[in-house]
């Protein structure tokens, strides 16, 4: 295990040290005193563990392919931006655009996440990206989503009142333009919050293998008892088709 003292280091120097240690064969790095340095882990292709203590700056793990990153603290915007494979676990909260254009790997946020989570995530024959949010997510969740899985567990806050006309765990415009993948949101799915390009069904984790798997994955990662969630109802949101905007165009010529 190698330790990097991150306090007062410019991001470029911090990231250079990370790369240097990994090149020398280190497989577990602890980054202490991180205070907002950007691009940590960006583009790394090593199968290494990065343990970050403090606040990870924007674009943590962007475009990375392989490493396993954990943040004992919060992360700012762009966690796992255009990520290809690997794992990012944030023990606190995360900012906006988590997992934008993400192609594979797993992002777990123990607390709340910001707006525009999982926009344009996509899967392919051999990759399936997953984002699990322990708390709540802001507006535009899963916009243009083309594949993969997003789960919003909503374990923070006051919980859900089924008679309410709003699901407080997510913002507005959920799944706009969605044409692939699955979103699970705990609780209700008020029509005004969710795009009309999707199908909504209600499932319990016991009936839905994938949801159960993701809840267990989340519980294992953070050492939490999530058994209470197994009794909860989740809205499962899937696209109506893979061509959401085909009807807008003139195909006569």
């Amino acid at each position, binding site marked *: 295990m190698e330790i990097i003292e991150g306090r007062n280091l410019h991001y470029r120097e911090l990231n250079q040290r990370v*790369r240097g240690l990994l090149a020398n064969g280190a497989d577990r790095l602890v980054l202490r005193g991180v205070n907002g340095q950007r691009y940590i882990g*960006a583009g790394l292709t090593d199968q290494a563990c990065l343990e970050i203590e403090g606040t990870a700056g924007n*674009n943590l793990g962007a475009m990375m392919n392989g490493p396993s990153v954990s943040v004992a603290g919060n992360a700012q915007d762009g966690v796992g931006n255009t990520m290809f494979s690997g794992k990012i676990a944030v023990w606190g909260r995360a900012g906006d655009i988590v997992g934008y254009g993400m192609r594979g790997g797993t992002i777990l946020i123990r607390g709340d996440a910001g707006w525009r989570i999982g926009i344009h995530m996509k899967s392919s024959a051999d990759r399936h990206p997953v984002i699990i949010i322990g708390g709540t997510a802001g507006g535009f969740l899963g916009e243009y989503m083309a594949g993969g899985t997003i789960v919003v567990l909503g374990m923070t806050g006051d919980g859900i009142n089924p008679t309410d006309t709003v699901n407080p765990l997510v913002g507005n415009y959920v799944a706009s333009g969605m044409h692939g993948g699955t979103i699970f949101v705990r609780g209700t799915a008020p029509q005004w919050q969710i795009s009309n390009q999707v199908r909504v069904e209600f499932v319990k984790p016991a009936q839905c293998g994938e949801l159960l798997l993701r809840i267990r994955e989340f519980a294992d990662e953070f050492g939490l008892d999530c058994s209470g969630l197994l009794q909860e109802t989740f809205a499962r949101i899937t696209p109506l088709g893979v061509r959401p905007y085909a009807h807008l165009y003139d195909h*006569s010529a």
Partner: protein
Amino acid sequence: MPRSLMQPEFLVQRDKERCIECKTCVRQCGFGVHEYEEARGVLVSNDSECVSCRRCVVFCPTGALQIKKNEAYRENSYWTEDRLRDLRRQAEFGGTLLTGMGCDRTYPIYFDHILLNASQVTNPPIDPLREPIETRVYIGRRPEKPVPASASGCGIPLTGMPMQVSAEVPAAVSAEMPCEMPKGAATVELGEMAKGPTTVESGEMATEMPPAVKLEIPVIFSAMSFGSISKNAILSIARAAASLGTMFNTGEGGMHRDLEPYKDHMIVQVASGRFGVDPSYLNAGRIIEIKIGQGAKPGIGGHLPGEKVGEEIALTRGIPRGSDAISPAPHHDIYSIEDLRQLIYTAKEATEYRKPVSVKIAAVHNVAAIASGAARAGADIIAVDGLRGGTGAAPKMIRDNVGLPIELAISAVDRRLRREGLREKVFLIAGGGIRCSADLAKIICLGADAAYIGTAALLALGCHLCHKCYTGNCSWGIATQNPYLTRRINPELGSQRLINLLTAWSHELKEIMGAMGINAIESLRGNRLQLRGVGLPENELRELEIKQAGEAM
């Protein structure tokens, strides 16, 4: 309901005397116009499907075919045929009209109103047959001043370029700074690079150069993705780029494995859909280009319809077969210049500062300020794509009505960057409607370092500008994924045509430069004294910063 009001746009005329009923036309047409009626034993043509791509005309062995414009509409100089046709089609089918290639409307073509200079007596012309004329350029960021080797990895200070200008000109003011800046307020600080000491060690400069890529000719093949065009078309372009010592651009289609041998000549594009983007893709190319916009459809994203996403495209783009490949209009992680800076530096971090990063923007009314922002955000290269730039598919109203001619755009960008002290730091590429070597020379004189060509390259491969790229039926085997059609392009023969074209342009460019008495692109760039306007009003001359023909030096 009346029957359809749509009339065929073109009429196929078959000369029965010449036709030998060989059925070549039936096989050649990608749109199914020609048909052999077995029962009657005759060849018939379905005019309404004809797009006038002239494949059948070119391939008819006896010259029996001609395509004529169908004068189906009563002449009206306001309600032109194009307007009537579009309106009727929308009335019948609804929906956004799609088109392909570049804007074909009759806006002024400034290239055709600009004349080049030549030397006579006082400054003798140079004979390119006897004397070397340098067309080589280096694409990437230029260090403005020598930088001490110890400062950082590759000559860029750790802080990069500051986002604000000096104290005299607050950032908020500078964004709207008029072209004519007041004297005394024009000093723009360029970070520690400009202030840093010049280190001279043992008589040698200790400057480390930022990454740059050599181009033997100032022409680069612009972004055309696998999906918008066929693999054979891309391979033709890639081979030609490698042979000519220039670059090609993957577009937002990811990198097909067959492009591996040409990756030293490859620009990899990152657009809003992030298709095929991963560390190996970023590291494969020599240059990374962040695509913000495209001249053919500024402000509009990309959209490869699901029916074109077959096995190979799905694999290259990293998406399932049959799924729409949507690139949203904005990058959803870029809502500001500061955000653009983050993506630029993410790309730089991900590739350890070994690749120049380009930002491609469409020429729009505020293009100069946007280019200035991109330069401040850390772009090493700025590519500006003009109104005439092509596309595989775009809404017709956008293509034909949004943007700026590249001549005006590049002039405005060059002027803005010069006045803010940024021009020497970035490499400027002009794209969108470069048709010949004279256009190339003129756009360089207006401020570009090099030009992107897309349409010109496809024309060399056989494109006949039928504007139907979005249908995927391209009879010429270019804008299609139908294997029966794509086989029509042989990468070896295709690349030879492109090599021929650019070799000819290169000779012509040298002759143009030699005639001016100029022997390097560096001396041609921004050299507006070599240009004169004919038939342009004063405000257009001012925008282009060129003098009226007849005015002396």
